[in-house]
């Protein structure tokens, strides 16, 4: 603590802040590094757990930084509306992450209205190239980009935006979405794009080639069946304690993470984990779940359970978290610096928690905004999240005779107008269904819109 302050580099400064946090733990106030969630304030700078990539020997931090939920200017949470990315804050987050041992950064040409790669490039280019690994994707949202030329252009543009001449990790984006097999073939095989990427890997411009998977399990199985040929270096899957055994129950068109992980482990393919927290649905949970988790570990955050769950699997290379705020980052670093692996008993405890959560009728939206923009102006994630929020807070009355009917009704309706502008509410959904194919969780969005609209009508007309 009493080193020469003049010589302190930026990174050393952050380490210091971390050390100061250690020193100040237990003190009443610790500015800058204070902890908002009430858990111990320590954010260790040098205790990060690393996993080794069996092919390249990369030491990858267990916490990976997802660049999908970057902060926007205006101080609003995450990426509401059409606000620009807050580059200043992105830089701060990236600096802090690197100073605390995080070295895996995952982005895509589609994220944040297509601006994530650019922002990530700016933030990372301020650090030595050997201090971080970049993962980006060959995205598949617009059929206009499905040509060979369009794909190459997208790939080259990623390098340009990220200001690098090689990519550490490249993924085929969202395999299994849309029409499944047919879309995969059209997008990556028939046009020769996959062959091109394999060639790029041989040339060393792509160090690891893999794919991210959502949706139709046939495509997942098909790609793994050709592992001999393609030699996948890693695969990105959705894994968390709710999806471990219940993904299929939540939506029959999805696949349990237990199966996905098992298939990868069988082949010794490292797994990169996405949605460990389900876009916050495993941190913002109903009150009784909070109590259930906190009773066991009063000082740990609700989110830390989800991170420990995902990190405890040995073949997991890194766990991605889309961190919008410094507090998210700090809390997640705490969970993995170092990882305290789950015991078998704790594993069972989380399975019980998942069972408990299944009783709630939560809509499985993770606020990834893949469905947006809705051509008819709706703010789909905001509508779904408002519904989930009211569900968590007990503000979804089932009957007008309910004890809290009046206050719950007011909270729902007033909150609805606050969360979603009137013209972007569910009653404007025309059911064109252009959104659903983009949903990684395969939510039947028009159906949910109608359900919420009808519920709102009944609240408004007092006919519940």
């Amino acid at each position, binding site marked *: 603590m009493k080193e020469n302050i003049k010589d302190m580099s930026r990174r050393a400064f952050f380490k210091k802040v971390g050390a100061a946090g250690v020193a100040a733990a237990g003190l009443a106030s610790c500015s800058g590094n204070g902890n908002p969630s009430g858990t111990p304030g320590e954010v260790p700078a040098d205790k990060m757990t690393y996993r080794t990539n069996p092919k390249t020997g990369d030491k990858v931090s267990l916490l990976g930084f997802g660049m999908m939920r970057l902060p926007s200017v205006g101080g609003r949470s995450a*990426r509401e*509306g*059409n606000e620009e990315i807050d580059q200043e804050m992105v830089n701060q987050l990236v600096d802090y992450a690197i100073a605390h041992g995080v070295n895996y950064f995952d982005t895509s*040409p*589609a*994220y*944040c*209205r*297509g601006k994530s790669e650019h922002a990530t490039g700016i933030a990372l280019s301020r650090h030595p190239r050997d201090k971080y690994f970049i993962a980006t994707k060959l995205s598949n*949202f*617009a059929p*206009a*980009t499905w040509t060979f030329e369009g794909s190459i252009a997208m790939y080259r543009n990623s390098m340009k935006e990220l200001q690098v001449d090689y990519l550490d990790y490249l993924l085929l984006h969202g395999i299994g979405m849309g029409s499944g097999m047919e879309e995969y073939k059209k997008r990556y095989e028939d046009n020769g794009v996959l062959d091109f990427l394999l060639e790029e890997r041989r040339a060393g411009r792509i160090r690891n080639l893999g794919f991210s998977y959502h949706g139709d399990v046939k495509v997942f199985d098909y790609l793994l069946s050709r592992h001999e040929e393609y030699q996948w270096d890693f695969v990105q899957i959705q894994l968390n304690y709710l999806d471990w055994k219940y993904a299929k129950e939540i939506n029959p068109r999805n696949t349990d993470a237990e199966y996905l992980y098992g298939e990868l482990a069988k082949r010794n393919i490292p797994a990169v984990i996405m949605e460990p927290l389900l876009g916050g649905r495993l941190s913002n949970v109903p009150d009784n779940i909070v109590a259930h988790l906190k009773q066991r570990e009063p000082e740990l955050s609700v989110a830390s359970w989800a991170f420990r769950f995902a990190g405890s699997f040995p073949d997991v290379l890194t766990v991605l978290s889309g961190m919008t705020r410094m507090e998210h980052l700090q809390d997640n670093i705490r969970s993995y610096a170092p990882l305290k692996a789950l015991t078998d008993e704790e594993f069972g405890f989380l399975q019980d928690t998942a069972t408990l959560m299944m009783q709630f009728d939560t809509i499985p939206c993770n606020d*990834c*905004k*893949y*469905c*947006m*923009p*809705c*051509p*008819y*102006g709706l*703010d789909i994630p905001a509508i779904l999240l408002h519904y989930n929020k009211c569900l968590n807070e007990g503000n979804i009355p089932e009957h007008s005779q309910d004890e809290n009917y009046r*206050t719950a009704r*007011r*909270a729902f309706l*007033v*909150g609805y*107008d*606050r969360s979603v502008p009137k*013209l*972007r509410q569910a*009653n*404007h*959904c*025309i*059911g*064109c*269904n*252009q959104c659903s194919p*983009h949903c990684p969780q395969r939510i039947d969005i028009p159906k949910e819109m*109608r359900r919420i609209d009808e519920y709102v009508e009944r609240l*408004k*007309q*007092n006919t519940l």
Partner: protein
Amino acid sequence: MLRKIRQILAILFFALITLLFLDFTGTIHAWFGWMAKIQFLPAVLALNVGVILFLVVLTLLFGRVYCSVICPMGVFQDAVSWMSGLRKKKKYRFSYSSEKRILRYAVLALFIIALVAGVGSFVALLAPYSSYGRMANNLFAPLYGWGNNLLAYFAERADSYAFYETSVWLKSLPTFLVALVTFIVVAVLAWKNGRTYCNTICPVGTVLGFLSRYSLFRISIDAGKCTSCSLCSRKCKAACIDYKNHNVDYSRCVSCMDCIGTCKHDAISYRPAWKKRATEAPADGQQAAVKETSASRRSFLTATAGLASASLLKAQEKKVDGGLAVIEEKKIPARAAAIVPPGAWSSRHFLQHCTACQLCVSVCPNEVLRPSGDLMKLMQPEMSYERGYCRPECTKCSEVCPAGAIRPISLAEKSSIQIGHAVWIKDNCIPLTDGVECGNCARHCPTGAIQMVPSEEGDPESLKIPVINTERCIGCGACENLCPSRPFSAIYVEGHLEHRML
């Protein structure tokens, strides 16, 4: 003492009536909605015999206390005049003037002719209560709304649902301008000469003035005690005390009781007429230099453009994730007949009874009602559905209307009153223009008047378009408002001249 009672009552009435126009939650109306209903002109238009009799008897007993206490326009002028009197050496700034009788009765005659002839805009221009209502709705309500929104802003951050945001919007420019001009003219008159408006222009003032000549209780000057100091005349905002002759013009006295305390010799008292006969003031109304409320008479037509040129929101191809599509504002379609609220019976009935006080416009929670820009019914409300539609759980306008222009109806009645019918515009319909499934109009029709049928006859797989059963349509505008086609909806409501019970 009498003055204090008058002041307290006046403030009470004034504040609560103003709140009727400001409150958008409906709580004030539940308790004090009657205050609008005892206003003279609305009661006359509503043929509310009880209220009229009460006001006539009240005036015959106590003089024009109505003008001093119940009428918000009168109290508003008193407030302005009071502020004017706070200036140095302006406390006793009035002087006696003779009655402008010809002018008063001429205006009244014109007013009655306009009323009978159904020139609603002229009636609305002169009626005191509606003039005040327009001022409150157009000038005060926005301030109140913004204040509320500020509280809502903080409430949202405090996670409280105590306040919610309300939208403040310009409902009609002509009406706003009329309200502004009325405000300026009346305020200037009151600032300079007190009750000039009430005693020269106001038709209600003239009618009540006629009655108050014979009122039972009235102020009178004891000639024995009076020293002709002129203080009472200079204090009288109605300019009705002729101190030289110890006369009071009771047709203009609004029983404000200001003079009683002003007299240092105790010569003025409020007492029954028979105790001391007062001779009538000589009537010589000659010079009539009255500033008339000069509202611009241009024909303000609703802003409409050709339906054919409607540019449609085209579904954009999705390339990246996130972001919000731009939503174009809806424009008002050209309606052959204006839509008036359920309970109005017919546009003729509505035209004859509405005083354009804007109370219904103030309380409409769905932003449907707004003042008309049509010259013949300028400022009288009409409905349009670009911002919202006439929701099934709401009968607010019919609850608050003091003039009987919108009769009280129940929710059940409302759902079966046909105020108009929907018309389909093929060129704008999304399934045909964008090639996507829609049916949002049919889904939201409260009476099930819209069905979706295949656009290609004989091809059940073709995209479906709406067809309207006009027999079941009530004209609520849910379809028009929720139609995704912008700026012009593919389905809009035509008003009916005569409403019909289904």
